[in-house]
C-alpha cells in the first residue's frame, strides 16, 4: 500500500521536496515508515530522535500501524508563539 509523507519546515530543505509517496507492506508501523523515509532521504537521519510524526492531524508513536491512504507528516520540533 502507498502512504503519502509530507515534510514541514526545514525538513523540506533537507529532503528538497514537499511530499513523497512511500510503498509499505500491510501491517507496517509508523516507525518502519520513518526508517524507510530516512533511507530515501539520508539527511533526515541526524534528526531521527527529535522528529515529530503525525498521521492525519494527530500525533502518533512509532508502534502505530498504518492503513492504506494514511497521510503522514514528519517535522522538526514546533515553535509557535
Amino acid at each position, binding site marked *: 500500500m502507498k502512504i503519502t509523507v509530507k515534510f*514541514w519546515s526545514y525538513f523540506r530543505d533537507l529532503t528538497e521536496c514537499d511530499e513523497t509517496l512511500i510503498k509499505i507492506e500491510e501491517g507496517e508501523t509508523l516507525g518502519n515508515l520513518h526508517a524507510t523515509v530516512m533511507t530515501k532521504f539520508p539527511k533526515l537521519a541526524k534528526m531521527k530522535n527529535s522528529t515529530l510524526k503525525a498521521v492525519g492531524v494527530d500525533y502518533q508513536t512509532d508502534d502505530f500501524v498504518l492503513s492504506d491512504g494514511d497521510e503522514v507528516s514528519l517535522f522538526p520540533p514546533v515553535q509557535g508563539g
Partner: protein
Amino acid sequence: MKTQLTLTPNPIPKSPPAMADGMGAVVTFHGVVRGTEDGESITAIHYEANETMVRHQFELIFAAIENQWPVESIRLVHRVGEVAVNETSLWVEITSPHRAEAFAACQFLIDEMKAKVPIWKRAVR
C-alpha cells in the same frame, strides 16, 4: 465555553475584551517578535503553519482547558507569514469568573502550543 481561533497573515487588531455576565477576569497575552535570534539581529520572523493540524491541535488544547477550569471564552490569533520585529505574532485572551483559572489556563495553553501545535519559525535577516 466559547472559542475563536484565527490564523492570519494580517496584523492583529486591538480587540476590546470580551465581557460577559459573571466574568470577573480577562487575561491577555501578546507574544511579540524580538529583534534578536540566537544573538543576531533580525528584521522579522516568518511563521509557517500546517494549518489543518494547527486547528485540530488547538481544539484538543481548548478541550483540555475546558476539562480543567471554568473558563468562559478563549480567543486566539496566531499570525502566519512574515511578522516584523516588535509586532505581535500571538495574541490570546481568556475570560473566566475568577483570575486564578484565567492565568492558569493561559499559561497552560501557551505551554501546550509550544509543544504540540505545528507552527515553525524562520528568522528574516
